[in-house]
């Protein structure tokens, strides 16, 4: 173990920053797997930022709250299915657990997708009709984000008799017991990690096919590339915008379920905030407006954050994320894969 600088002191307060290559080397594969798992979730959320930006040139800062609503959506779905919060894990058998998780994911997708479309109609469309400048959209997005958070914080508990929302995180409903499927050296891959990565990659692949192969996807790319010409060619801009929000919301809802598998006690009114910022960061890293860029950016960010934590100390997670972003943007100002949703095919 090589500890340089002032690290390794007896007092926590003394070790400001360490440089621990040994820790990174020993834990490399375990961190990579954890990072890919978390990065896959970033990636799904990042798609929502990137699609909306591609079509509207709008940073939808309320997207993190759409994700948060997705977490509540899947939680409520599980409650409707008859599950209640409990200390230990339900044992339903593999098949039924997958079915329940699938239904919960659909619930999360429905809530998040619906909320994203609703947000677009209530907050953004009226502004667009009046031709508001882009700064107004940005402020509206931030405002909408607060409104949704405080709704879940104060109003939702009153509407649901204290079952949902409020000050504390929801008491977890645990369907899956984490167990190691593959183990080697000091690395193990759990069933939860496999489920998250496989589901996230499948959904990401589906989104990619949808954008690149279908008629709707062509419409989205057309509007992103040149809204005026697209309109002249008979593409309805309003429809495409709504579709874009819907897809972003649905993927955020799916990500919400995967996230709660990993962090069962993360269902909280403010629980989307940090993850949303990271996903936005991932979108910019990969090239905002570019779907594959968002996926790549998410995975890269997830992995690099954990490497950085092992290397410099666990408190440096966010710093590592943003330093990485700045470094990449210095050399590639439009992100790793470039900016445009319309043009980028790589």
């Amino acid at each position: 173990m090589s500890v340089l600088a002032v690290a390794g002191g007896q007092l926590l307060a003394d070790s400001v920053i360490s440089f621990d290559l040994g820790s990174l080397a020993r834990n490399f594969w375990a961190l990579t797997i954890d990072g890919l798992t978390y990065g896959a979730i970033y990636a799904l959320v990042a798609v929502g930022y990137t699609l909306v930006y591609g079509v509207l040139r709008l940073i939808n800062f309320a997207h993190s709250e759409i994700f948060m609503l997705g977490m509540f959506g899947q939680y409520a779905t599980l409650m409707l299915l008859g599950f209640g919060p409990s200390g230990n894990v339900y044992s339903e058998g593999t098949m039924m657990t997958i079915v329940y998780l699938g239904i919960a994911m659909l619930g999360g997708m429905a809530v998040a997708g619906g909320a994203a479309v609703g947000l677009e109609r209530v907050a953004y469309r009226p502004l667009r009709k009046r031709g508001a400048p882009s700064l107004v959209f940005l402020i509206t997005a931030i405002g909408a984000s607060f409104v949704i958070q405080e709704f879940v914080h104060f109003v939702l508990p009153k509407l649901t008799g204290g079952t949902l929302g409020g000050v504390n995180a929801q008491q977890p409903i645990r369907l899956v017991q984490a167990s190691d499927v593959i183990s080697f050296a000091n690395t193990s891959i759990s069933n939860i990690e496999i489920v998250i990565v496989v589901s996230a990659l499948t959904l990401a692949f589906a989104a990619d096919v949808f954008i690149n192969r279908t008629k709707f996807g062509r419409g989205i790319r057309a509007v992103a590339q040149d809204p005026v010409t697209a309109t002249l060619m008979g593409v309805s801009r309003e429809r495409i915008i709504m579709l874009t929000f819907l897809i972003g919301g649905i993927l955020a809802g799916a990500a919400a379920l995967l996230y709660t598998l990993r962090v069962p006690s993360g269902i909280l009114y403010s629980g989307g905030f940090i993850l949303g910022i990271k996903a936005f960061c991932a979108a910019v890293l990969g090239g905002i407006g570019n779907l594959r860029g968002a996926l790549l950016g998410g995975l890269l960010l997830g992995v690099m954050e954990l490497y950085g934590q092992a290397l410099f100390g666990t408190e440096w997670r966010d710093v590592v994320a943003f330093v990485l972003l700045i470094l990449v943007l210095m050399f590639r100002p439009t992100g790793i894969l470039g900016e445009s949703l319309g043009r980028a095919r790589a």
Partner: protein
Amino acid sequence: MRRSTPRLAGLAIVVSAGLVLAGCSSKSAGGETTASGSATAAGALAITPLVQVDASGKEVKSSGSSAAATPAGKGGAKCSAVSIAMAGALTGANAALGINILDGLTLAVDEHNAANPDCQVTVKQFDTEGDPQKATQVAPQIVSDTSVIGLLGPAFSGETKATGPIFNQADLLSLTASATNPGLTKNGWSNFFRGLGNDNSQGGAIASYLKDTLGYKKVCVVADDSDYGIGLAEVVTQTLGSVADSACAAKVKTGDKDFSATVQIIKDAAPDAVYYGGYYAEAAPLLSQLRSGGVTAAFASGDGSNDPEFVKQAGDSSKDAYLTCPCGPAPDAFATAYKAKFNIAPGVYSVEAYDLGTIILAGIDSGITTRSDLVKFVAGYDGVGLAKSYKWDSTGELASASTWVYQVK
């Protein structure tokens, strides 16, 4: 172009409605299967008192609290337009602690008011959300409210540190039931008193307990980024000495929910125990992730995690976790009265808030009408409360402080 928009909106609604229906229609089937194969009773785990220890980890026999002072006093006290301020997190992620304190104080004041019809004291609550920045905005409001004779709070160490000079300048009694950062009494604030042991006593006690009583050889100390968590972890690390492994000492952020790297580093170190300095909002997910990551080491944390919410969030993972608190368990009579009034069992610091409220009320009943007289009254106070006996030294620390070790069982 306009015409087609509602059609797509309709489509979206139909699609989402269909998804919801898909969920609902399977509900009954799901309900049946879960009824048979469902999890066992959830509320089985609870935080139970284990042992009371002194700063060196040795057991202290608890002194009976039969002679405790009551808020009712002798009755027939006279006063007018007096209020006690309470400042702390009443909303936000760590509001449970603030509400425990507010309820404990409210109970004391209500008992007092019932017995003293000519001295109706009111409680004024000031929500700081536990945030030092918010607290500095709230503090001047407390000072400028002339009916406020004394303050119970602030609740957290960070906000106490930030607002201390404001209250000190106004010579307003600042009697905290929960801020345990040791540095707070080293500022020369003559108006500041701590109604419980500080992190030095709490941290030292649990560290000695882990090292000497339980005989652990390797402990990873994790801290959050709050004044409270950092201070506590520092004392624990110091007391543990060579038992604390600096290679797996980690820091996390308040608000974090994912601790992948921290878990992996701890797993790599394979310690006997993990100590966490911080609050339950992070302690619970950290512990669940440690357990699902395959770390079986014992888990210990301080009063910030000592809350039923910790057990709720961490579920079965919280089993056998050690939680310390300078606060004592609630006596039965108090618990019954508290439960009857607030429909919830007393939480951490409820008893202390009640005791400290009683002391302020005793001051008011003795005819004190100015803020500075109340500060003098508390400085010279010597009496027994429900939790312990209260007598302060010149810095505002309790003359003798003990720590309770609780375990989730």
